[in-house]
């Protein structure tokens, strides 16, 4: 397993889901910091404006169904960022959706590494971190 500490960004309109994700991420002992956003637009402007620190990539976990800007719109906007910014992040989509067309749509985004089912568990997270 990669021993570098990682930064995380969680984007979910549900405060409870943000809280759960933060807890699970911290419990892995592999995180350097977790930022959560209930509004995808705020997360986007953070990614655009605040440069990442350290050599490792930042992991972004984003929900699909959110008001104002949903996960799809988030990913589409992210893919318009300069490649230098995009290269610093790894995006995972986390959703309660069991809708086939949602899953297909997620698979078609080149910047999305993987689709994860809610709820996020420490098992899923550890597996996911082994791939990084």
């Amino acid at each position, binding site marked *: 397993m990669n021993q570098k500490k990682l930064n995380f960004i969680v984007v979910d*309109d*549900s*405060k*409870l*889901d943000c*809280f*759960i994700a933060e*807890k*699970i991420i911290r*419990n892995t002992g592999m995180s350097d910091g977790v930022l959560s956003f*209930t*509004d995808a637009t705020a997360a986007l402007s953070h990614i655009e404006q605040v440069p990442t620190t350290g050599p490792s990539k930042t992991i972004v976990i984003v929900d*699909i*169904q*959110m*008001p*104002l800007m949903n996960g799809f719109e988030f990913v589409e906007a992210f893919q318009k960022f300069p490649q230098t910014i995009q290269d610093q992040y790894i995006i995972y989509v986390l*959703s*309660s*959706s*069991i*809708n086939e067309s949602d899953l297909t749509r997620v698979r078609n985004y080149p910047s999305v590494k993987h689709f994860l089912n*809610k*709820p*996020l*568990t*420490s098992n899923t997270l550890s597996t996911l971190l082994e791939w990084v």
Partner: protein
Amino acid sequence: MSKTDKIKILYIDDEINNLHGFKATFRLDYNVFVAIDTNEAKAHLDKHPDMRIIFCDQRMPEKTGVQFFEEIRADHPYPIRMLLTGYADIESVIDAINRGHVFRYIKKPWTDVDIKTAIEEGNKFYLANSMLAIKNEELQKAYSELDKFAYSVTHDMRGPLLSILGAVDVARNMDDLNEVREILELMDKSVKKLDNFIRSIHDYYNLKRGELHITEIDFKDVTRDQEDIYMIAAKMNNIRFTTSVEQSEMFRCDEASMKIILNNLLSNAFKYQRKNIEEKFVDFSVEVSKGRATILVKDNGIGIHENHIAEIFNMFFRATSEEVGSGFGLYNVKDALLKLNGEITVDSKIDNGTTFKVVIPSK
């Protein structure tokens, strides 16, 4: 039967005597319109889209009846077309059926019975046809709502459940009681959100399927009920809640629909408050006069962005991630108002507040 309830019938003939005779014979039973040429006939049709039956003479100087029917079919597909002719050659019969899509072919000189039977038969056909069109449209709408519904239910119902499931998993490994309390608080919100969603579905279904039960509404009672519900929330969150009722005449309405409207508007007003301001308020007022109730729900909360105002009444639309909304409330409000022939207008400014104005006529 008043004149407006009668079946509307149009008769086109270039012989004025025929028109007079027709009108004299049938004007008591039907609402008869006559036209001496096709231009006049088209003017009648444009003015009366609910024209049920058209009788047209086949041989007219400018064009034939079949040509006329063929022309109007695109713009006026619903009226039942019948052709009157004294020259029954087989060619024109075939033409009438193939090109003019006529329902009946009546030989001149007609008898009263011929015409009456034709009208009654044509009317039955018209009713069945238009009913089918209406039902089809309703069905189409129901299907597209069901699609949206099924999609959103997976998120709006599974979402909170999965959140709780995740929270349980995390809480298992917690030793700090304060942390456990914090997560319980969040789980509580998730459960309420799910409950709120299920209640909204219940409202939605009642509105769709429910009959209206019109009773006399005393807005003083209605307002007191709402006060009972929201006073606690107002106290807890330090929100000034004022109500006023001016009702000097009787008002009749469906109470259940009325409650859905008031409940949703008030719960939104309390929910979407700005957290960091001192003087939070919700004003509720009702004025009944001249057979109409005007209801105002005013708050100085977070407001709605102007880009979203057009969408707030759409099913599952949410204009903010600030609070737990189902995206169902205002949709139900609009649905209820549709049943009551009421209207709603919104005046909102972001970070300033929102006022909803509802006008409902007494039944």
